[in-house]
């Protein structure tokens, strides 16, 4: 199989099923046995059965293992590291939304950070003004971001490519000055300082651990929701829009509807992530949501792997740890190393880290099989 097909396979493979499965090879196995009408050969019965059960189960085992590690982690690390992993999950949820839009629906957004900020500020204002319980702010922040995403998704119906990129960038650009304006509500450029959710006594957890588990719950919820969404008829419609708009249309997929909805969902995840951000940091200010945040997010999901489930997580790790690790090298280094690494990753793994991981797994399996 050519390199190109292989990569496309990896891309699609990561697309709509749990991570860690290989879709390109199973059918090749099935293809080896020519179909004979009437007489079901062994290959014909076995190969599809294998293809159906094993990879899915393998994916779920990987997810379970990941969750086990995630639950174990905060008891082994120092609070600062726990905080960092909490932020990885916050970013992962935001990237999950961006992935839905860019990786699955094939649109582009340079304004994702704005919806993240909307979620964060909605939460902050609710906590600041009305003193709502923390958990109650999550659905409201998500809903507000969803509504705004719906409104800003409308341009996507008419625009595409560069033009859409520009319009979404404008959203990110006008947001920060806007936040500085309404000082009585937003706290202006000083921002708002808020109480973090306190761990209930029965848990026996420290604050950083409690925040970690709250965020973990949000992340698990978000991933389950996205998984369900993409496995449904709606997910298929989004993929159709991404891969061939004209063909999707003649098959009865209403383009304006699904494009707008993709924006709204992606904003909803960003809003939920923003909400968790406010819980964790306990402080919002316009300077936390500058335009580069949106760009960093786009870079994060492209590097993590568009259209894959592990992509947002890998992207979150990248966005969180690369700047902080390179800071240890040299104070001036983060920007340079971050930028260079983006170039290197794109060069080595055009389908992102998730695609790279898939390729490494495949070739390892091939080597093992030969021996």
């Amino acid at each position, binding site marked *: 199989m050519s390199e190109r097909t292989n990569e496309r396979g990896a891309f699609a493979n990561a697309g709509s099923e749990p991570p860690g499965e290989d879709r390109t090879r199973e059918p090749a196995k099935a293809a080896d046995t020519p*179909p004979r009408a009437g007489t079901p050969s062994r290959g014909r019965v076995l190969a599809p059965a294998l293809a159906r059960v094993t990879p899915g189960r393998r994916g779920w085992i990987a997810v379970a293992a990941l969750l086990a590690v995630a639950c174990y982690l905060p008891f082994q690390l120092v609070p600062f590291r726990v905080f960092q992993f909490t932020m990885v999950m916050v970013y992962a949820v935001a990237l999950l939304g961006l992935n839905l839009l860019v990786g699955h629906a094939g649109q582009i957004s340079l304004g994702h950070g704005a919806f993240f900020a909307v979620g964060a500020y909605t939460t902050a204002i609710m906590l600041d003004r009305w003193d709502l319980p923390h958990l109650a702010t999550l659905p409201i922040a998500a809903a507000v971001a969803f509504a705004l995403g719906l409104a800003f998704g409308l341009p996507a119906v008419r625009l595409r490519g560069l033009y859409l990129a520009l319009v979404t960038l404008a959203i990110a650009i006008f947001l920060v000055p806007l936040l500085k304006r309404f000082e009585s509500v937003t706290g202006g450029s000083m921002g708002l300082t808020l109480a973090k959710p306190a761990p209930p006594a029965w848990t026996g957890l420290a604050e950083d651990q409690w925040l970690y588990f709250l965020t973990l719950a949000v992340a698990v919820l978000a991933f389950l929701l996205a998984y369900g969404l993409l496995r449904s008829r709606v997910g298929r419609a989004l993929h159709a829009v991404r891969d061939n708009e*004209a063909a999707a249309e003649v098959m009865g997929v209403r383009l304006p509807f699904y494009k707008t909805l993709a924006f709204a969902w992606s904003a909803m995840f960003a809003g939920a992530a923003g909400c968790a951000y406010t819980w964790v940091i306990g402080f919002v200010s316009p300077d936390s949501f500058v335009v580069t945040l949106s760009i960093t997010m786009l870079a994060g999901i492209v590097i993590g792997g568009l259209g894959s489930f592990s992509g947002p997580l890998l992207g979150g790790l990248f966005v969180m740890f690369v700047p902080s690790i390179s800071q240890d090298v040299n104070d001036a280094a983060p920007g340079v190393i971050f930028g260079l690494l983006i170039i290197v990753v794109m060069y080595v793994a055009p389908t992102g880290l998730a695609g790279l991981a898939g390729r490494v797994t495949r070739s390892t399996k091939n080597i093992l099989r030969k021996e």
Partner: protein
Amino acid sequence: MSAEGFLTISDLNAGYGDARVLHGVNLSVGRGEICAILGPNGAGKTTLMRALSGMVWVRGSIGFDGADLARRSPDTIARRGVAHVPEGRGTFMPLTVEENLRLGAFTRRGRGTVEADLERIYTYFPVLKTRLRQVAGSLSGGEQQMLAIGRALMSRPRLLLLDEPSLGLAPLVTRELFRIVRTVNEQERTTVVVVEQNAHLALGIAQQAHVLESGRIVLSGTADRILQDEKVVQSYLGYRV
């Protein structure tokens, strides 16, 4: 021309932006018929198909089973039972064969009927069943065309539009495809409009044929008559029979 027009196109103009491609096309297709659209490159054959499924601007009327499809959106037309297999197949390359097929049934809900339809498609195209989990991009050209037609049939269309199904395929594969189209037409009474460069093959399965040139219909008649008209074959279809 058939008396009962299941699909009746009258005075149809269509094009892209400022460019008008079709100039007052009239034609009518009876229920359950196969109609071939022939003509040289650039005659407007593909534009006619796109006009029927709402993908280009249209003036005139497209009567389809009592409704007018002109100026309707592509998804509305799809919901009305028109399935378009576009030129170049339009399969979703990164998606699997099964996902492609399921997308074909997008306009319909209800799990049970979709499963039954999948089985129905496999009887026409057994090769697809052996490729279910494979991404469409890794199929051969012929298999992709089969997938595209199978996907269109998943919507249980009343009108099937085939745009150059033979494009880039080996003669043997093309013949097989046309045989299957014939079978589908006979078994499901699906009306078919097929645009084709390979006039001989198309006329072999069609009852009616129309020759399109420079956006106008220059000749209409039964497939047999057009096939026998040597002058037509030479001047419009570009080769001797």
